[in-house]
């Protein structure tokens, strides 16, 4: 199944003002893998994700989605394979109702209206948001917006799900529901986040980025127990692995 492989080779990227964002990134993600992408603020996580969905094109090096190199001419194909869930769901929900938002992708692919409708129902059902179908997006809570944003991507039937900070701004219950939902997906998943506990729950493999370079790439359990590596990259072990004293009344 080579078409589900994400391959990043010698990728470097600098912002227009010259600030280097990525330098010499080498990563290969295989079919069905669930990979956490962690790093401090400014480590290059979002920039790397934007390369995976073709929002940025490589300046040096290359990115391949399956057999297709990510270039200007292949963006349409790449974006059908890679579904990107943005950090702020408000960026993704721009149509008057939830149903129209979820149907936006399928209709753009050129699916007939009844097939698009079927996909809308399936995707909303899958994320447990079928009851929100006729609601305008600005009337949804943060957790509901996130679920609908994920449904909007799932409706396009991508093979690879790329997510930027999926648990940001969610309350604990919504976060727990999100983890349960994502665990049920069989897609290849790349999750960039500061929520190391979420990575611990969902991803068997973790890539640590620091100042635009890959500092570590391996099993999540090994990486998250290597405190010196995490501290060196501006991170800390997940809360679930940290001893806590708790707050006592004086």
């Amino acid at each position, binding site marked *: 199944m080579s078409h589900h492989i994400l391959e990043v080779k010698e990728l470097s990227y600098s912002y227009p003002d010259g600030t280097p964002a990525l330098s010499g990134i080498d990563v290969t993600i295989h079919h069905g893998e669930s990979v956490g992408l962690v790093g401090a603020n400014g480590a290059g996580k979002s920039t790397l994700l934007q390369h995976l969905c073709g929002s940025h094109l490589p300046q040096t090096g290359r990115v391949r989605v399956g057999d297709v190199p990510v270039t200007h001419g292949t963006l349409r194909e790449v974006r059908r394979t890679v579904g990107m869930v943005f950090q702020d769901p408000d960026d993704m929900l*721009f149509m*008057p109702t939830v149903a129209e938002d979820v149907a936006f992708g399928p209709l*753009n692919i050129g699916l007939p209206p009844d097939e698009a409708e079927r996909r809308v129902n399936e995707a909303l059902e899958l994320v447990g948001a079928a009851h929100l179908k006729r609601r305008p997006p600005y009337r949804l809570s943060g957790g509901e917006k996130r679920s609908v944003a994920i449904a909007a991507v799932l409706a396009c039937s991508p093979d690879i799900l790329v997510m930027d900070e999926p648990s940001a701004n969610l309350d604990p219950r919504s976060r727990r529901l999100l983890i349960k939902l994502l665990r049920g997906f069989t897609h290849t998943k790349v999750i960039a986040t500061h929520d190391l506990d979420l990575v611990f729950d969902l991803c068997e493999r973790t890539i640590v980025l620091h100042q635009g370079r890959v500092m570590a790439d391996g099993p999540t359990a090994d990486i998250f127990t290597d405190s010196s590596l995490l501290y060196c990259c501006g991170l800390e072990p997940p809360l679930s692995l940290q001893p806590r004293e708790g707050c006592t009344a004086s």
Partner: protein
Amino acid sequence: MSIENALLELRRLDDLAHQDTPLHRLDARAKVLATVLFLVSMLSLGRYEVARLLPFAAFPWLLATLGGVPLSLLLRRAALALPFVLMVGIFNPLFDRTVQLHLGPLAVTGGMLSFSSILLRSMLAVTTGLALVAVTGFDNICRALGRLGMPSLFLVQLQFLYRYIFVLVEEAGRMMHARALRCGAATRPSLREYRSLLGSLLLRTLDRAGRVHQAMLCRGFSGTMPEYGMPTRFGRAELRFCLACGLYLLAVRIFDLPLLLGGMAGGLFR
């Protein structure tokens, strides 16, 4: 009115558009066409015509009554436009002092007439626009405009304006709140502060616009907004509505209804 309240009122109009009345069920194109005819016929009256504008008020009243829209809500929302209208017409009474008619001892100048006319026209136009949104829904209006031939580029702009006005107002509300917490809620921002607040809001908006565009591209956007669901039909009910509105609007545009009614009333008492 605070930013948050303005947002709530705007949402209320949107809620009203989800009602189920015969007027709501009409194809949006019929209501848009009738409104365009209303605007053209009303705005093409002469600048000193004030009395002839009055029969035009029947159209927004009809939309509001048939569509179950509280008139008070429309008038409250329309009042927000008053300062701008006043700015436009405030100097007319000063510049145009030709006496046009006498109301008993009061000499009414051309400036006073044209100022009243501007005020009335604006209120009628804004109220009708708001009533149209409340009985049709903004997205349906956009769709109707598209089906009536409006270029997709303008249509997308309109749809986005309406969708993101909520996000933008929330963002502006947060900025104003943060400012108020740091310098006392009672003081209004100075012009200088407004400048930097607006500048910052513009930059945030540009940032968001870039992200929204990327999100659209990621889901296959190629310049045209896809249409979801089965389009409604322009049937007999729509034709009847357009004919009824059209005939009334043409009648009040061609004939001076207040003068005719006045003449008839005068005849009765003679």
